């Protein structure tokens, strides 16, 4: 791939990402909320103002809900005491990668 081709590829990936992020805003024009939109955004609003649980999520655990999307975030809120997976996720990725690097560099040379 030439530099120009790689820059075009990056542009296309950027466009695709923008498309998936903006599409809901185009599909549900202002003032015409669809049923699906009302249902989910209601959950988000409840999560926001859900006192202590919202606070816990915001304080440290919010990123842990990320891979699970809005439904996951909501479910965590509903549990009352969401487990803080963020540090574990990072730890797992970090330890796993270092272990793999050691194995391929020292053991399976």
């Amino acid at each position: 791939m030439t530099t120009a081709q790689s820059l075009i590829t990056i542009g296309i990936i950027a466009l695709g990402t923008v498309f998936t992020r903006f599409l809901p805003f185009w599909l549900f024009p202002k003032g015409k909320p669809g049923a699906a939109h009302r249902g989910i955004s209601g959950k988000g609003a409840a999560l926001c103002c859900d006192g202590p649980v919202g606070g816990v999520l915001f304080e440290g655990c919010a990123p842990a809900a990320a891979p699970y999307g809005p439904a996951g975030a909501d479910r965590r809120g509903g549990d009352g005491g969401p487990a803080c997976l963020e540090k574990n996720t990072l730890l797992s990725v970090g330890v796993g990668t270092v272990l793999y690097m050691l194995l391929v560099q020292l053991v399976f040379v």
Partner: protein
Amino acid sequence: MLTGYAFLGLAYGILMQSAGFPFWYPALISLVVYAGSMQYAAVSLLGAAFDPAGAFFLTLMVNARHLFYGVSMLEPYRAAGKKTPYLVFAMSDETFSVNVSACPPEGVDRGWFMFWVSLLDQFYWVAASALGGLLGRVLTVSTKGIEFVMTALFVTIFTGQWMEDREHRPALVGLGASVLCLALFGAGNFILPAMALIVLLLLVMRPALDKMGAVR
């Protein structure tokens, strides 16, 4: 947030550097694409033959989850006025999860609060990617095996979802369809057919899955 972005961003920069790209590549991609998992997937795309259509469809598949984030943020992001376009552009997994539950202190405008969360997050990500790209070159320890960070990230996300959810059939569909397509199409071409098969199977299974959800 800073720790998470610093670690994954650094690893991304180092990975890009070890794939032969100068440091401004990861920095530029983090600036204009700003979607962690897709950026990792793009490392191999950029190293392969030029395939714009394939790159576009893979981006749509990997980032399809953003549709659900957007639906949840329609009202709060629209209420932010002129800041809306940037807020939507910068809606990464982590930024979404902070902003969806953001309850700024009294007297603080929620729009500005979300704007600064988004901007700081992207700044961490771009800076860490650039730093990784630079460090990769001067690093004296071997970075052989660093590409495993991507596998580790996806395995961790998958394991987390598996433990979180009582309903394991969608995950099993994903695994089964991927293994089948890997056997049929080989490692170079299995992702798109596997994703198409997963979507198809989940659509077919949807009534049954909805029923389970309603019972719970």
